């Protein structure tokens, strides 16, 4: 009669295989003390079938083993099975003096492999668990014949028997079969399996949801691409088609090009309204609107940084000339402020002080962030440069996690830029702030124009080369030229 337990454990794939064996064997032992087992023919209360399942093919169970249970008052699985139980692999084996094993010319490093690979033909003799048949020294596959092992098997057996005893006690409490009184370990294992299955279902659900939202995003992207193409802009989507930038980067580039359109509109309106001598309140609304417009690009950058921080921090989203001046992913705030001071006359003395303090604070903050980033780069260099090749994967993992810190620095740099933009209207009047934004806007426009002029003055070969980046520049140039069609002087 076999042990029904094995099939009822409800084990999932998530459990490690050693646990499975352990558990299954435990179950085998818990069947126990159904009074049947001793009287069974040829199988150890179902253990024979269990062993066939566990012990790999090629390891034969001898008659001795098959008969063993009938002659034992306690259950005792074969040593092959015993050796596969995780509890066997620990302290007891370590306590065994290795010399005695080594004297047999054995490698004793992997007990489990020796368990699986050996044919433990010289097993426990039924009558006396302690007596052993000393195998010949020529026999290389009998590690289990050593006395220490015998002792260990005894200990193992007594463990098993104590388990059986507790199960027996449970049985004694009046349940007709042990199946109605599973022990705590079984219950826990069952609960764990249920939990694992539940988690698995949740993961699947999350994955499906992710797929769905990606599908929607893709549809939206395709729509956007259609729209921008029809308007004559060729950035972002095309670059992605060339396959040289990530989809997160391509998406940001597209969002940025749309933002540039908006920027152009905002600046035109600002210029018109400023020259129209609007009331300060009305102008304030427009100025506030422009600050929100900048807040938007910072938000977009923050979101894009999660998928491609390198694209942002290296300034790949900008035109090449702008990229010359990049500091941690965008303009250097203190340089911008320096430029503003000269353009914003007349300023009151109070305002001059305010602007100078702002510039000074910005410089200090920039210096701190630069130093922190430098330390990150050095640390990254160290983690890649050193160490033996054996640990390469580990090295890479460490380097990757360090690289992830770039996102924090980009965030702080953008935060600094945003804070400064918000601080300007607190120092300057509304009109001055409006002029400020026009100055900044004009400056950036000229940088981009410079970039396209530089590109168009290059040798003709450049435009038809295989170099992908040139093609991207070419496309950006087309974009700039497009925007220059409605370019108005500031």
């Amino acid at each position, binding site marked *: 009669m076999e042990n029904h337990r094995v099939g009822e454990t409800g084990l999932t794939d998530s459990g490690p295989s050693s646990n499975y064996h352990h558990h299954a064997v435990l179950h085998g032992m818990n069947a126990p003390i159904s009074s049947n087992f001793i009287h069974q023919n040829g199988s150890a209360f179902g253990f024979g079938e269990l062993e066939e399942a566990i012990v790999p093919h090629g390891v034969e169970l001898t008659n001795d083993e098959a008969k063993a249970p009938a002659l034992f008052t306690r259950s005792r699985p074969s040593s092959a099975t015993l050796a596969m139980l995780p509890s066997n692999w620990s302290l007891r084996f370590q306590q065994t003096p290795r010399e005695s094993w080594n004297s047999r010319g054995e490698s004793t490093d992997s007990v489990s492999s020796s368990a699986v690979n050996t044919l433990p033909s010289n097993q426990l003799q039924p009558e006396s668990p302690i007596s052993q048949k000393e195998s010949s020294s020529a026999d290389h596959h009998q590690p289990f014949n050593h006395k220490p092992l015998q002792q260990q098997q005894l200990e193992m057996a007594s463990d098993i028997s104590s388990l059986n005893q507790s199960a027996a006690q449970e049985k004694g409490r009046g349940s007709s079969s042990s199946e109605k009184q599973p022990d705590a370990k079984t219950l826990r294992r069952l609960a764990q399996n249920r939990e694992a299955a539940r988690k698995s279902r949740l993961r699947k659900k999350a994955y499906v949801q992710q797929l769905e939202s990606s599908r929607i995003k893709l549809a939206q992207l395709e729509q956007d691409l259609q729209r921008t193409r029809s308007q004559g802009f060729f950035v972002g989507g095309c670059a992605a088609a060339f396959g040289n930038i990530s989809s997160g980067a391509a998406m940001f580039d597209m969002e940025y090009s749309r933002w540039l359109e908006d920027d152009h509109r905002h600046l035109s309106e600002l210029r018109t309204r400023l020259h129209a001598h609007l009331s300060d309140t009305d102008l304030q609304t427009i100025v506030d609107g422009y600050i929100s417009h900048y807040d938007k690009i910072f938000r977009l950058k923050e979101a894009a940084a999660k998928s491609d921080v390198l694209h942002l921090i290296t300034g790949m989203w900008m035109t090449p000339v702008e990229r010359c001046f990049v500091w941690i992913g965008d303009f250097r705030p203190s340089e911008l402020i320096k430029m503003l001071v000269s353009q914003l006359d007349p300023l009151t003395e109070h305002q001059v002080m305010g602007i100078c303090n702002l510039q000074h*604070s910005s410089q200090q903050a920039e210096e701190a962030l630069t130093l922190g980033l430098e330390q990150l780069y050095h640390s990254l260099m160290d983690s890649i440069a050193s160490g033996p090749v054996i640990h390469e994967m580990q090295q890479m993992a460490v380097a990757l996690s360090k690289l992830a810190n770039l996102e924090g620095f980009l965030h702080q740099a953008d935060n600094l830029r945003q804070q400064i933009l918000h601080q300007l209207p607190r120092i300057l009047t509304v009109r001055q702030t409006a002029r400020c934004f026009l100055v900044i806007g004009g400056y950036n426009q000229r940088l981009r124009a410079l970039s396209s002029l530089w590109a168009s003055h290059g040798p003709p070969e450049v435009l038809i080369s295989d170099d992908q980046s040139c093609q991207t520049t070419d496309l950006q140039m087309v974009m700039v030229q497009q925007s220059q069609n409605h370019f108005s002087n500031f």
Partner: protein
Amino acid sequence: MGMGMGSDPMERLVKLASESAVVIFSVSSCCMCHAVKRLFCGMGVNPAVYELDQDPRGKELERALMRLLGNSQAVPVVFIGGKLIGSMDRVMASHINGTLVPLLKEAGALWL
């Protein structure tokens, strides 16, 4: 570095934070912590720095800081004059909007 005795981590934080004019909780390998330390040094301030990875009960303090700030980054965190300023975000924002320097002067960490 003063080590509080057997007290609740939050209490220990508050105690440490009030022992110096400027207190920075940091982790020695953290680059952003390095940045905030350099910021204060660059301003002529001499902050008291507690490297939590070198404190036997540092993990507790890290968790308490995370709870205090409500975010997943425990460090860097800055206290000035015993009052919580926050992490790098807040420090930079207060430097730009001009509130940092007065706070430092008030706490006696900066002189004109």
